[in-house]
C-alpha cells in the first residue's frame, strides 16, 4: 500500500500511514521526501488537522525546512532544514493526544542546535497514542542507554483526558554530538513493577480501585508492585473527566516493559486495572529487552549510533516496527541483521550505525 520509490534525491512514499516517521527520518537524514496519495481515495481527502498540526510543529523546531502541500492536501513535498530546538509552544488540539506529537520529536531533540524546551497543550492520556506517563517512565529511559542522561525531563503540569483535553506538559532534552552504541541482549528477569494510576475530574477513589484491580493480577508473581495514584484537581485536571493506568515492569538488567490503558466512557476502573495488567503480562511474555511500544525508538537510535555494531534483543516485532525497519533502510541504507533465538522466541537484531553526528550543534 505504502510503497516507496526514489528518483535521484527525492524519496517518494504513498499513503497517509507512517507519515510522522517518514518526516522525522527525512529531517534526520536530510533527504527530501515526497508523500503522495494521502487519503486520495477517501471521501474527505487530504491531510487531517492533526497531521497539518504536526507539520506546523516540525516547521517550528527546524530552520529552513519547506513544506509544499498541494491544493487537495493529498501530496506533501518536504525539504528538511536544520533542527534548531529552543523554547517552543504548541497547541496539539484534541483530535490526537500529545503523544502523537511528542513521540517522534524525542528523536529529533538530541540533535538540535539548542536544547529542546517544548510545551504542549492537549490530551495527555488516551487510548490511541502513547500516554505521557509511559513516555516519561519508559521511552525517555531508553535514551539513557545511548548516552543522553542529564537534563532529560518530562513534566506533566496539567492532565487532560479525551475528548476535551486541557492538559499541559513540558519536555526538556539536552543536545549531544554523537550517541553511544549499545549491546543489550540480556533481558534479565522482572524485579519490580511500578505504575501510575491517574484520574481527572472524577472521584479520587477511582485511582485506588485501579490500583487494587491491577495488583490483584500482578501480585501473584512478585510482591514488589507499587502503583502511585496521581489525582489532579481543579485547574490542573483539564477539561474532561477520565482515568487511566500505566504500568512499568523493570528487569534486573534494566529492561523496561510498559502497558497502559485509559478509560472509555462506561468502563469501570476494575476493568481498566485488570486489562492493563494483562497487557503488561502480554508484553512480558513476548520477551526481549525493549517493549513493543519502544522498539522503533531503540532501533532508530541504534542506526544513528557511531559506525559500530549495536545489538539488541527484541520480542515479537510489531507491524509498526517492521515498517520502521523498511523506512530506516530507505533513508539510511541500514539493514538489520535479524537472528531468531529459538530458545525463547526472541529476535536478536544487530546493525552497524551510520556514524550520525549532530550537524547543527555549534562548536566554539
Amino acid at each position, binding site marked *: 500500500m505504502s510503497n516507496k520509490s526514489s528518483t*535521484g534525491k527525492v524519496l517518494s512514499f504513498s499513503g497517509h500511514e507512517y507519515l510522522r516517521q517518514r518526516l522525522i527520518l527525512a529531517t534526520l537524514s536530510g533527504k527530501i521526501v515526497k508523500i503522495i496519495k494521502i487519503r486520495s481515495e477517501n471521501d474527505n481527502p487530504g491531510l487531517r488537522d492533526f497531521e497539518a498540526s504536526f507539520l506546523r510543529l516540525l516547521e517550528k523546531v527546524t530552520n529552513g525546512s519547506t513544506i509544499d502541500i498541494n491544493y487537495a492536501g493529498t501530496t506533501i513535498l518536504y525539504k528538511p532544514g536544520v533542527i534548531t530546538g529552543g523554547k517552543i509552544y504548541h497547541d496539539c488540539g484534541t483530535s490526537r493526544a500529545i503523544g502523537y506529537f511528542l513521540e517522534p520529536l524525542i528523536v529529533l531533540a538530541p540533535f538540535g542546535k539548542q536544547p529542546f524546551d517544548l510545551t504542549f497543550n492537549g490530551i495527555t492520556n488516551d487510548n490511541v497514542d502513547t500516554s505521557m506517563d509511559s513516555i516519561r517512565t519508559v521511552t525517555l529511559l531508553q535514551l539513557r542507554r545511548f548516552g543522553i542522561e542529564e537534563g532529560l525531563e518530562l513534566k506533566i503540569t496539567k492532565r487532560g483526558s479525551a475528548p476535551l483535553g486541557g492538559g499541559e506538559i513540558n519536555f526538556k532534552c539536552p543536545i549531544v554530538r554523537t550517541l553511544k552504541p549499545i549491546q543489550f541482549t*540480556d533481558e534479565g528477569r*522482572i524485579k519490580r513493577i511500578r505504575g501510575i494510576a491517574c484520574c481527572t475530574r472524577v472521584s479520587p477513589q477511582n485511582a485506588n480501585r485501579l490500583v487494587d484491580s491491577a495488583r490483584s493480577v500482578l501480585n501473584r508473581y512478585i510482591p514488589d508492585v507499587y502503583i502511585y495514584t496521581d489525582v489532579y484537581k481543579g485547574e490542573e485536571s483539564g477539561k474532561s473527566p477520565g482515568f487511566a493506568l500505566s504500568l512499568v515492569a523493570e528487569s534486573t538488567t534494566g529492561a523496561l516493559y510498559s502497558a497502559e490503558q485509559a478509560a472509555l466512557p462506561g468502563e469501570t476502573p476494575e476493568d481498566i486495572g485488570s486489562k492493563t495488567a494483562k497487557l503488561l*503480562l*502480554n508484553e512480558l511474555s513476548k520477551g526481549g529487552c525493549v517493549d513493543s511500544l519502544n522498539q*522503533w525508538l531503540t532501533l532508530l537510535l541504534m542506526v544513528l549510533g557511531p559506525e559500530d*555494531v549495536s545489538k539488541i534483543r527484541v520480542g515479537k516485532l510489531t507491524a509498526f516496527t517492521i515498517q520502521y525497519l523498511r523506512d530506516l533502510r530507505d533513508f539510511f541504507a541500514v539493514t*538489520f541483521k535479524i537472528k531468531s533465538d529459538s530458545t525463547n522466541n526472541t529476535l536478536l537484531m544487530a546493525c552497524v550505525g551510520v556514524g550520525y553526528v549532530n*550537524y547543527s550543534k555549534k562548536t566554539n
Partner: protein
Amino acid sequence: MDNKEQQKAHRPRQAGSKKDKKSKKQKKNEEKNNPKAFAPFSGRKAEKLARRKQELDQKKLHVPLVDRTPTEPPPVIVAVVGPPQRYTKHNLTEIKGPITVVSGKKRRLTFIECTNDMNCMIDIAKIADLVLLLIDASFGFEMETFEFLNILQTHGFPKIMGVLTHLDKFKNNKTLRTTKKRLKHRFWTEIYQGAKLFYLSGIINGRYPNQEIQNLSRFISVMKFRPLIWRNTHPYLVADRVEDLTDPEEVRLNPLCDRTVTLYGYLRGTNMKSTMKVHIPGAGDQILSDISILPDPCPLPDKVRKSLSEKHKVIYAPMSDVGGIMYDKDAVYINIPGSFTRKSDQIDTEVDDNGPEYEQGPGEKMVIHLQDAPDTLADKLEESELTIFANSAPMKASDLVEEVNSGSIDSKQIDENIRGRRKVRFADDVKKHDGGEQETDSDEESDFEEDYDEFEEKWEKVASRSFAFNRVNMKNPEINDEEIAYAESDSDIEDILGQGVDDDPALDGSLKWKSNLAEKAKKMFFSNRRINIMQLIYSNEKTPEEIASGKFSDLLKVEAASNEKDNVEEEENDEEFFKIIKSQDKDSESMNTIDSTKTYLDISNLDKWDDEVMLESIRNRFITGSLEDDSSVGENDSSDNEVHGDFEDLETGEVVKVEGSKKSENEIEQEALAQKRALLKKKFDAEYDEKDGTPKVDFYDEIKEGISKQLQLNREEFEDDDSHTRAMVEGFRPGTYVRILLRRMPCEFVKYFDPAYPIIVGGLLATEENLGFIQVRIKRHRWHKKILKTKDPLIFSLGWRRFQSMPIYTLNDGTRNRMLKYTPEHMHCLATFYGPIHPPNTSFCAVQSVSNDNAATFRISATGVVLDINHSVEIVKKLKLTGAPYKIFKNTAFIKDMFTSALEVAKFEGAAIRTVSGIRGQVKKPITKPEGHFRATFEDKVLMSDIIFLRAWYPIIPKKFYNPVTSLLLSSKKEWQGMRLTGQIRKELELTPPINPDSQYKKIERKARRFNPLHIPLSLQANLPFASKPKILKKRTKQTYLQKRAVVLEPKEKKMYTLMQQINTLKKEKDRKRKEKQVKKHHEYAKKMAKRDTILAEKDKKERREYFRKQGLLQKRSATYSEGSSKRSKTS
C-alpha cells in the same frame, strides 16, 4: 626446552691471560660506574623526578581514537611529493597513477606521485597515509613544500617523512653538513622536533643507492599510523584503474553522451554501503550504482614466512604498464612484461596489444595470437558456441541476443551472460534438469525473464544463486531482494515456503521433477532461516501488518494460539481483496490506518490471561520464578548463554533440551546451586578484588579498553555470516578490492583522463550532500600576500570537496555578527558561505585560484574550521541614516531628509535617534505633508545646527553561489577557471574601482560659529545672588599706580646681566664653528665613500661578466653535447 636444559652452563676461565683481562676490565668499570649515581638521595629530588616522569608520561598520551583499520588493512598510501624523482626499485618506464606493491608480511604500499598542481596536492593530502616529502637539498625548500604541508595540516596531518636528495651536488663537506642541519631544523619547526628526515645522496646509474632505499623502505614498513578523524568516519577509495563501459555504438552516435565507468581500488576508511552517495573530487557527486568485490590483485602472502621472497613481492600498477595478471569481474587481463613495440594497429580492448620482438614462450605466443583476431572479443563471444549437453544443439551467444529481441544490447550485457554461464557450470545437480539456463541469471535482466517459463526460471535462480553465493554483487537492494526471495509476488513466496506448492495448477505429472526441485530449494531456504526473516521484513512483498500478525508464524514460532486466530482472519482478508478499499471508502478509519505506535499492539486476546496455565507460563520471567526451570530451558541469563552457546538452529536447540531433560532432578539442583555460587563469587570478586588486588584503571585506560572491546564486537558480530548478508548489513569492509560502477558520468571524465591525477571516490554521509550556509572560523594565512575581500570568490577544500564559494567575513561583537569588508590582518574572523554541509569541527584550507598562474607566491590564502551549519544567517552591517531638524519646539523637533516616504517612517516608529552632541530621542509619527518628514522627541532641546542620526543594522545575505571545482573534466587539469576575483575582472576589463563621491575624503570646512552675547534680563539679574551676577565695570580713565612708574636695573644687576650675555655670545660662536667643521668633515667622508663604491661596483661588474661568460660557455657546451647524444641515439 629440553635442549636448553641439556646445554652446558658457561664456565668462565679460572686462570690465564683471559682471566686477567676480564678482571682488569671489571675493576675499571667498577671505578667508573657508580651504581647509585643516578638514584636520588633526597626525598625532594625523588619527588621532583617522579613528577617529571609523570609529566613526560602524560605528554605522550593522545586522545584515544577509534582505529577502524581492519585486520587485513588496505595498502598504505605513500604519496611522493616534490620535484620529479625516481623511487621504486622496479624500473617503470613511466610512473602513472598509483602503484601498489607488497612490501612485507602484513603491509602493502600504494605509491602515488604528486605533481605541484594545486588540485593534485589537495587531493593527495586527503588520502595519503604517509607523505614522502622530497626536498632538493641543492635548492632548499620550495614554496610547494610549504603549501603542501599546510594543506596536510588542515586535512588531518598524516605521517610525514622528509627525504633530502641531491646531496651529491655538494662538493664541500662542510657546506653539506651545514645545509643538512639547516634544512633539518627548518623541517622540524614545520612538523615537530625530531621529525624523521632521510638523506639520499643521488642517482647513480639511474637509481638511488640500494642501501639508502632499503633503509627508507624499512622505515616505511615499521611505521605506525594514527587514525585521522575524517577518514575514520568516511569510506573512500583511490581508483587504481578506470574503465569505460559505455556501449561503443552509443559513443559513436553521440560522442558527448554520458558514460558508464568502472573504478577499481581498495576500500579504505569505514564500510561502504552499496547505495551510497559519493563525491569524486574534480568530477562531482555521483550515486554508486554497483559495487562488487574482486579478488585482491596484490594479495598479502598467505603463509607466515620469515622473509618475503621475490616471488611474493607483487607489484600492481594498472595505469603504468607493469607486468602482472589482473582479474576482473568478467575477464582476465594479461600484461606481458618486457619491452615492446607495437606490432599492429589492431586494437583489442581487453588484452594488451603489444607484440614481442624477442623469442616468445607458448603463453605469450597465445596472447599475441589472440591479438591477431580480426574480430573484437565481443564479436567472438557472439559467435562462440557452447555445448552444454552432449545431445543438445550448440548455443550461440548471438542467438541469445535474437531471443531477447532487444535491438541494442551492449557488450556489457553479453559479458554478464558469459559470466552467468561460467557460474552455472558448478551447479551440477541442477544442470541435469535444465535446458535453457544460460538464458537467464544475469543480474538485471528482468525484461528477459518475462519470455520464459516463470516457474522454471525461479528454480534456476535458486540453484545458481546458492552456488554463487560467495560472489557478492549488489545491484541495489530491491533487485537483490527479489533475487533472494526468488519470486515476484506474494503468491510466489508462498510457493517457496511450500505452502501453496500443491495447489499450483502448473504442476502436473509431467513436471514432477520440478516439485522435487522445490523440495530441495525449500530445504536450502530453510537451512538459512535468518535470511528469511530479514527477507520477509525487507522484501516489501508483504505488508508489515501481515508479517506482524504471524503469516510466517512457523518461522518465528510465536504463540500458537493467537496466530491461529489471526491466520484465519488474514486469509479471509486475502481472499476478498477489495475489502480494504471498502473500509477506506467509509470515512471511519480502521485501527490499522491510524499512525500510532500503540494501535499496533494486539489487545484483542487478553482473555487468555484468565487461564491459570497461561499465567504460570511466564512465571520464570520474574525473579521470583524458579532457577531450575530457567537453566534447563535456557532462559537467557548471561551465564546461561555462555553455557549453552549459540542457538542458531532450531535443531540444536532441541538437542540441548533433550539433554536437559535427561538429567535427573538432583543433578539439576546441584548445577543450579553451583551456578548460584559462581555468580555470588563473581559478585564478591567484582566488589572487593579491584580495591586491593588489581591496580585501579584510570580514565584513559578505561576509554581505551571500551574502544577495543567495541572493535572486538564489531569484528565478531558478522564473522559467521555469508558475504551477502554482510554486504547488506554492514556494507563493504575496508581493505577489500572492489569494482565500482558509476553511471551517467560526464564524457570528459573518460576523454581527458590523466593517470597523473588521482581519482578519489569519497563516500558522503547522510546529510553531507545537502547545501546550506556554513559558518567557519577563518584566518588568512600569514604568508599569503594580501588580505581577503568579502564576496570575493574563494576555493575551499573542505571534506572531500573542492569548491568555489563567496564568503562574507564577519566578526562577532558579542551581540551581533557584523560584516567586515576585509579579513583582519593577524586575527581570526568568521566567514559565512553557501556550500555543502560538513560536520562542525571539520577543518579546511582555501585558495584563490587552483590554476598555476601565480606559482611564485604562497597560494594558500586561508585556513579554518567549520563552526555551524544553518539555513539562514544573521549578518548585519551598520547603516546610519542622517537627517536635520527644521522646526524645534521644547523637546520636540520635526526632522527632514532622513526618509523619503511615510511608509519608511512608519517602519522606524519608536526607533532610537541621536544628535551628534549626544542628545537621545525617538522617532514618533510621520507628517502627512512633506513626504518622509516626521516628528521626534528628545531628552533636551536640539539645535537647528544639529545633525540627527539613526543607527540601524542592515541584514546581509550571502550569495547562494556554489561552484564545484571540476578539474578532472578538463583537458588540461591545471587550467580550471572559476569565477574571477573582483580585482581580476577589473584588471582584465581595464576598469577602475567605482568611486562613491560620498566616500571621498574632502577638506572639511567648518565655519567659525558666532555666538550672540548672553543677555540676562534686568529683572532676572536683580534676583540673582551676587556671585552669579554679571559684573560689568566701567572703563578706567586714570592710569594705575604701576602703570605710571618705570623699572630701572641696579648697577650690580646690570653687571650680572651683561656678563651672562657675553658668555652666551661666546658659546654660540663656538658651537657655530664646531658645526661648520663637522659638516666639512662629513662631506669629506661622503666623498671618500663614493669613490670606494665606484671602485667596488666596477669590480662586481667585472666579476659578473666573467661568471656569465663561463655560464654561457657551459650551456653552449651541454647543448651541443645533448644534441650530439640525441643524434647518436637516432643513429643507433
